[in-house]
């Protein structure tokens, strides 16, 4: 055995495209390449776990297709219906509460998933899988005699021992304390380098998704809103809803206007330069825009910094929250919208930022991201100012 790479040989993309109106509404499309980790993120009730169960064959939506490589695991469209049972899908699944068999030892739990291995080799290989997740010496323990982190590792070893075509992880870190979680996340990141199958991670923890995933798929009410790399998603959310689900601030309403200097985005009394997207809109069109906090540049008092000419905006400091080495700053502009960004606490001190102080910031034109107008005129973050 030695390597953790799937013995299945030809591993392909895992693609999911399913739809149903109810009872759990679903309209989701996503795919995950071998060796890639795709995180399904969304609030509770967004259908993440249902989609994972759909891949595993534990749930059958009304319409759609789930395939792994060339093989269709589930197909329900145009009068065709075919669904492989979970046993035939060759998936490794780690359940949220691990679902270890309580009457079997750690090794027996792993061995049970090795029906494809000749009987004589199972015991030795199961011990090897446990060693791979750093559980040597604990083979004879029952799940009730293991810690939360150890149980999670047994569940992972059991899932991998099946030598699956896809690894499915349902909130695998939610049942352990934070220190254990960090360690297990690190181990998963290391393990990933050794396996070349698609990995789907269901999580509601954005930080976890950002840290572990190559791709994130944002779900809301069973609908997949956007799939992309964490960087792309955080800089270019497709809609205000995606931005809100990704816990982005700095989402505002604006209007495309023509000025003597060219097209601008009107935001209150300010006319902002935008690097991309203004040309494709119509004059007078209202839309939603977003600016990543990293593209808000605070003007220093004593010396000018680069980019100060770009979209300078006057504002007053309305909130300062020190979170260790970083300080979260909220600025109120004249028409009431709030800009939020983080700076190093020492930089806040050096700039003598205090509540009520007047400051200038530049909104980098390259960072301004335009999105379709939101149905409501209020930016989603504004209610936070009431807190």
């Amino acid at each position, binding site marked *: 055995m030695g390597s953790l790479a799937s013995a299945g040989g030809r591993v392909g993309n895992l693609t999911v495209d399913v739809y149903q109106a109810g009872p759990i509404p679903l309209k989701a499309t996503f795919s995950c390449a071998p060796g890639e980790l795709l995180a399904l993120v969304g609030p509770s009730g967004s259908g993440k776990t249902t989609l994972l169960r759909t891949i*595993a*064959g*534990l749930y059958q939506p009304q319409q759609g297709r789930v395939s792994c490589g060339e093989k269709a695991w589930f197909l329900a469209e145009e009068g065709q219906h075919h669904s492989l*049972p*979970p*046993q035939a899908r*060759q*998936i*490794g*699944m780690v*359940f949220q*509460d691990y*679902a*270890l*068999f*309580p*009457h*079997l030892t750690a090794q027996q739990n792993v061995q*049970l*998933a090795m*029906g*494809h291995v000749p009987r004589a080799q199972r015991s030795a290989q199961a011990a090897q899988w446990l060693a791979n997740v750093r559980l040597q010496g604990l083979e004879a323990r*029952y*799940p*009730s*005699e293991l810690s939360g982190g150890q149980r999670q590792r047994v569940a992972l070893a*059991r*899932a991998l021992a*099946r030598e699956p075509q896809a690894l499915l992880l349902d909130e695998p870190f939610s049942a352990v304390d934070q220190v254990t979680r960090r360690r297990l996340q690190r181990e998963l990141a290391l393990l990933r380098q050794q396996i070349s199958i698609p990995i789907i991670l269901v999580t509601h923890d954005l930080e976890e998704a950002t840290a572990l995933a190559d791709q994130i798929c944002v779900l809301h009410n069973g609908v997949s809103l956007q799939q992309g790399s964490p960087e792309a998603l955080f800089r270019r959310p497709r809609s205000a809803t995606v931005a809100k689900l990704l816990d982005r601030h700095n989402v505002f309403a604006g209007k495309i206007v023509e000025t003597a200097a060219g097209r601008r985005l009107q935001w209150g009394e300010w006319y902002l330069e935008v690097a991309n997207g203004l040309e494709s809109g119509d004059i007078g069109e209202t839309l939603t825009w977003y600016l990543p906090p990293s593209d808000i540049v605070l003007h220093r008092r004593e010396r000018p910094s680069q980019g100060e000419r770009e979209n300078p905006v006057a504002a007053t400091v309305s909130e300062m929250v020190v979170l260790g080495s970083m300080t979260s700053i909220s600025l109120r502009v004249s028409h009431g919208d709030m800009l939020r960004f983080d700076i190093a606490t020492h930089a806040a001190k050096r700039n003598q930022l205090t509540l009520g102080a007047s400051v200038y910031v530049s909104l980098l034109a390259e960072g301004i991201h335009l999105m379709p107008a939101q149905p409501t005129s209020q930016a989603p973050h504004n209610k936070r100012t009431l807190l």
Partner: protein
Amino acid sequence: MDWSALSVSLRLAALTCLFLLPLGIWLGRLLATAQFRGKGLCEALIALPLVLPPTVLGFYLLQQFGRDAPLGGAWAALTGGGLNFTFSGILLASLIANLPFAIQPIQRAFEHVPANLREAAWCSGLSPWQTLWRIELPLVWPGILSAAALTFAHTLGEFGVILLVGGAIDGETRTLSIAIYDRVQAFDEQGAASMSALLLVISLATLGLVYGLAGKRRWARG
């Protein structure tokens, strides 16, 4: 000591367990895991012998077992014999009277097996049969054991139904509890006492075995 009554009682209890346990496992699992129309009615019918006076149950069975009744007639056509006042008759009556004792503990046990253990087994490649044998049955084993013990002990003690359906034919339908009643009626207090003591010991031993075994599982602690 009425040895033939003891033999009838033990045979009756053993056969009742033998027939009822597979049914109990099947029905108990179904009731614990499936949702279907009429499930409540089904559970109520199974529980009915718990609250129905044994004489009432016995009376209806006596009626149904007659050769003119559909059940008794069908039995006669199949086997050529009757049901009333035969061992087959009291066995059938005992199977019905013991339904709740055989099914309910097993149903409760299946209800305590988390659904995702079954799913984890399927995802690990186990067929539904393998899942039943290797995951579910080992987990519900204490429930099956207590169903067996309750059914066995209850059959030994069953009186009203057996008396109505079977009468007290020596070596055929006279069970130990009926023999005790006969001994008391005949003012043979000594005979009644020794048989009562025997029933007490058997019942206690059965239950003791069950509770003893149920506590012995290392994995269930901690």
